[in-house]
């Protein structure tokens, strides 16, 4: 019965998002702190080191952690203001249940957990085990990601568990796995400043991975050249040596065009290709027709930009490729990444100092979150759930019959489609806000309403939580402990800073209690996250992402350890592929030819403009946390539609006018921001906001056939000038989905 129980403005009055501007205890400088805890930011995959200041079991402030050898004390606005999520008036402190027409009422933990267990069993008895699904998150620690994957397979016994890394890292991961045999950034960040040419493809580094900016600028100070591919001139593009304003979905034109020129001019490493790779001839054949002129048509840029890119990249002594969601959020996301990576292996510049490749992982534990078995197709240690030997090994670790482990389940988008189709009747979500973050949000909301039972574990009531039958108050990152794996593949320690407030509990305790009520308590007898890590070590042993040699102590002593780390004496592996040894059984990198093909929805007469979506520096993902922090909302308060003055003139729109951005699926009404820093055929709307301000009302529910990542970066829209809306949602505060 997952329907919103009362009007949305009424729920928002009670649960926010409200803005917090003052830390616990007010602005007091003179009092001594009880302690200062070295830990990491809860937000993006950079996982910057930070120290949190504690007084009376409350986070009251922070200090930079200048010794941590990744960010060296540096932070972005989200990191600086993150402590404002502690002691927040919106914090969920008690279990709640939905009461139709009244909202949500407080219940005891026993009553809430009993009801969840009963509903899971009822739904599974009536419709089959797979009719109950789990949606989880890549902000969970490794320990929790491991636990929830095991919980789904061992306690709930459903195949249908997937995570919101599906919206983030799966295209990059799949491409890396296909080409290199390993899904991880190949190099530590310390290699970036040593590269003489850096290609950044589809990454708004300054806003989405701000700390990495310093690494790029260091490279430039060392004389390195910077090439940026993006339909928008982002803050790092402004200072690039070559900025290519590629049409969204046209990236393969640039990559194949560059490789075409490199082959033609002999800027490829034939010895390396012969010794360490397979499949180059086929790729060379494929790029033959990608002359600069042909490539330029696909990319939507002048041909000489592609030539210039090849001239910079081709003969460089050292080079580094960075890519992110800009090329990955496509129905050909994996192909985009492979075409980019082909430039790396054709040059032979990988696996040594200043030479390599990295994907810029988006979510806090985007790397570790995809290794520990919460993906629909994976078991811990990046093992394949369809591989009999992998299944057998994990069945041994879990002490369950191999046949009891379900097979491959549905990934996030098909999973929501199965909910819409009535095939999945029950849902547990943790750390996932699909009504804001999945594409085609109107469809997602309609799907949620069809659930017979929905339980939501979270620390704030997200917009998806509005649909919940039961809400279980979980823990913030700083209220629990464990490890995450950062953008470099470095496993780091998150320390517990304070206790969860009220009756809120550490997420893992909630999951273990549910497992016990489902009759599998014996497999979930953990007394601490450390015990989960010890089991995870064994589960990952011999896998691709091998953590076996790590202990929490070793991780702390070394300021993080890079996987694979197969033995307690092993120093970890900061740089992969040294000596040209790749992760496939044949030890080689596999070239895979890629042909450009159109995106799922191209602009046409009816919907003539390209919409692309993305982030702004002061907000994170669906905004559940950052839309509750005053300073961050002040910095960027409501979504705007960026458009070029030429397009604005055609549409008779002035800066600040309200516009309706509309696709075949839905629309938003937001203010126009007229800027010259975007392609005239493209508009941009950031996606952090809910309801009538959700860019995902517009986006298309098309996914990559391999990675199943949604195509957030291109769909067809039309844009019209409208009057300011004054309905009940528009009148909400901006952080809740209103407009001003």
């Amino acid at each position: 019965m997952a329907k919103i129980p009362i009007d949305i403005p009424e729920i928002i009055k009670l649960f926010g998002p409200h803005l917090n501007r003052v830390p616990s205890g007010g602005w007091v400088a003179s009092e001594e702190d009880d302690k200062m805890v070295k830990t990491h930011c809860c937000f993006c995959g950079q996982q910057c080191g930070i120290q949190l200041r504690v007084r009376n079991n409350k986070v009251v402030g922070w200090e930079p952690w200048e010794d941590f050898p990744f960010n060296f004390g540096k932070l972005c606005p989200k990191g600086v203001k993150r402590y404002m999520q502690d002691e927040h008036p919106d914090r969920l402190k008690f279990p709640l249940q939905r009461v139709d027409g009244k909202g949500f009422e407080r219940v005891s933990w026993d009553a809430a957990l009993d009801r969840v267990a009963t509903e899971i069993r009822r739904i599974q008895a009536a419709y089959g085990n797979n009719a109950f699904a789990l949606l989880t998150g890549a902000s969970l620690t490794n320990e929790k990601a491991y636990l929830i994957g095991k919980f789904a397979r061992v306690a709930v016994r459903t195949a249908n568990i997937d995570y919101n890394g599906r919206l983030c890292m799966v295209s990059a991961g799949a491409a890396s796995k296909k080409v290199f045999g390993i899904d991880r950034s190949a190099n530590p960040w310390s290699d970036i400043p040593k590269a003489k040419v850096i290609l950044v493809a589809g990454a708004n580094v300054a806003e989405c991975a701000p700390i990495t900016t310093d690494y790029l600028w260091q490279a430039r100070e060392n004389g390195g050249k910077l090439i940026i591919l993006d339909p928008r001139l982002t803050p790092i593009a402004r200072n690039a040596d070559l900025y290519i304003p590629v049409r969204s979905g046209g990236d393969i034109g640039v990559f194949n065009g560059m490789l075409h020129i490199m082959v033609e001019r002999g800027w490829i490493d034939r010895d390396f290709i012969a010794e360490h790779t397979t499949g180059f001839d086929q790729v060379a054949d494929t790029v033959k027709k990608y002359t600069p002129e042909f490539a330029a048509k696909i990319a939507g840029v002048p041909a000489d930009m592609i030539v210039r890119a090849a001239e910079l990249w081709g003969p460089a002594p050292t080079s580094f490729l960075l890519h992110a969601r800009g090329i990955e959020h496509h129905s050909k996301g994996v192909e985009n990444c492979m075409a980019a990576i082909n430039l790396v292996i054709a040059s032979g510049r990988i696996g040594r100092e200043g030479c390599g490749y990295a994907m810029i992982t988006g979510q806090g534990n985007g790397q570790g979150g995809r290794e520990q078995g919460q993906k629909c197709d994976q078991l811990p240690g990046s093992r394949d759930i369809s591989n009999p030997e992998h299944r057998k090994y994990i069945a041994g670790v879990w002490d369950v019959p191999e046949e009891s482990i379900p097979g491959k389940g549905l990934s996030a988008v098909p999973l929501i489609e199965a909910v819409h189709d009535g095939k999945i009747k029950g849902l547990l979500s943790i750390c996932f806000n699909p009504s804001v973050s999945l594409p085609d949000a109107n469809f997602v909301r309609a799907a949620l309403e069809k659930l017979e039972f929905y339980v939501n574990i979270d620390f704030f009531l997200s917009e998806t939580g509005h649909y919940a039958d039961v809400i279980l108050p979980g823990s913030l990152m700083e209220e629990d402990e464990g490890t995450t794996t950062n953008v470099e593949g470095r496993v780091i320690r998150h320390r517990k800073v304070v206790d969860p407030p009220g009756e809120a509990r550490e997420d893992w305790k909630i999951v273990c209690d549910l497992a016990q009520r489902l009759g599998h308590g014996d497999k979930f007898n953990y007394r601490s996250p450390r015990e989960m890590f010890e089991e995870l070590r064994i589960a990952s042993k011999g896998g691709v992402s091998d953590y076996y040699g790590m202990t929490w102590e070793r991780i702390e002593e070394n300021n993080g350890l890079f996987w694979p780390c197969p033995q307690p004496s092993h120093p970890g592996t900061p740089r992969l592929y040294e000596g040209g040894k790749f992760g496939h059984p044949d030890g080689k990198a596999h070239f895979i030819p890629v042909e450009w093909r159109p995106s799922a929805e191209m602009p046409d007469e009816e919907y003539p403009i390209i919409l692309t979506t993305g982030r702004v520096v002061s907000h994170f993902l669906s905004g559940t946390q950052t839309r509750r922090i005053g300073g961050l909302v002040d910095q960027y308060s409501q979504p705007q539609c960026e458009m070029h003055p030429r397009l604005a003139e055609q549409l008779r729109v002035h800066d600040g006018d309200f516009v309706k951005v509309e696709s075949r699926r839905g629309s938003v009404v937001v203010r126009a921001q007229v800027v010259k820093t975007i392609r005239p055929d493209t508009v941009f709307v950031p996606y952090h906001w809910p309801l009538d301000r959700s860019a995902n009302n517009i986006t298309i529910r098309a996914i990559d056939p391999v990675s199943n990542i949604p195509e957030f970066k291109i769909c067809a829209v039309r844009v019209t000038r409208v009057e300011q809306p004054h309905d009940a949602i528009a009148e909400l505060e901006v952080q809740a989905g209103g407009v001003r």
Partner: protein
Amino acid sequence: MIHLEVIERRDSVQTAPQVCMHCEDPICARVCPADAIKKTLDGVVQSSLKPRCIGCSNCVLSCPFGVPKYQVEIDQMMKCDMCYDRSSVGKKPMCATVCPSGALTYATAEEIQRTRRGIAINSWKFGDEEVRTKVFVIVPREVEQVNIKLVQISGTPAALHQDPYDVALMLEAAK
């Protein structure tokens, strides 16, 4: 107490953080009728002293860098004091510690020389007025002084002359 200026969002994504430059001879202090603005022996210009500040905003109007801000709620001028509580005990100012791009940095002359292509200068000219500051800016090697003519102060045209960041013009650019 530093502020971030967006130069002209329509034309560019450029931003500029403005910290107090800590003038050797701070004009804000010289024009203060209440003698509320003091410079420490190590050359750091402080916020106004609460018992003395009369909120007249002379300092706000006189500073060529636009640094001091009058705070209505507390009827007092506040400005960047190089995080004196931190920098006086050997720590870096907070802005230079957390700046994710190194645009703001707190380092020795040797470190700057080693890590940057440009050079650091602290000499300014506003019209006929010469100003030397404790804070340096990094400029191309051939520049010796930042020289801002009065005509620029009275009104810099909103649009950049060649429109270097107009994506439409880039796409049209022929060989």
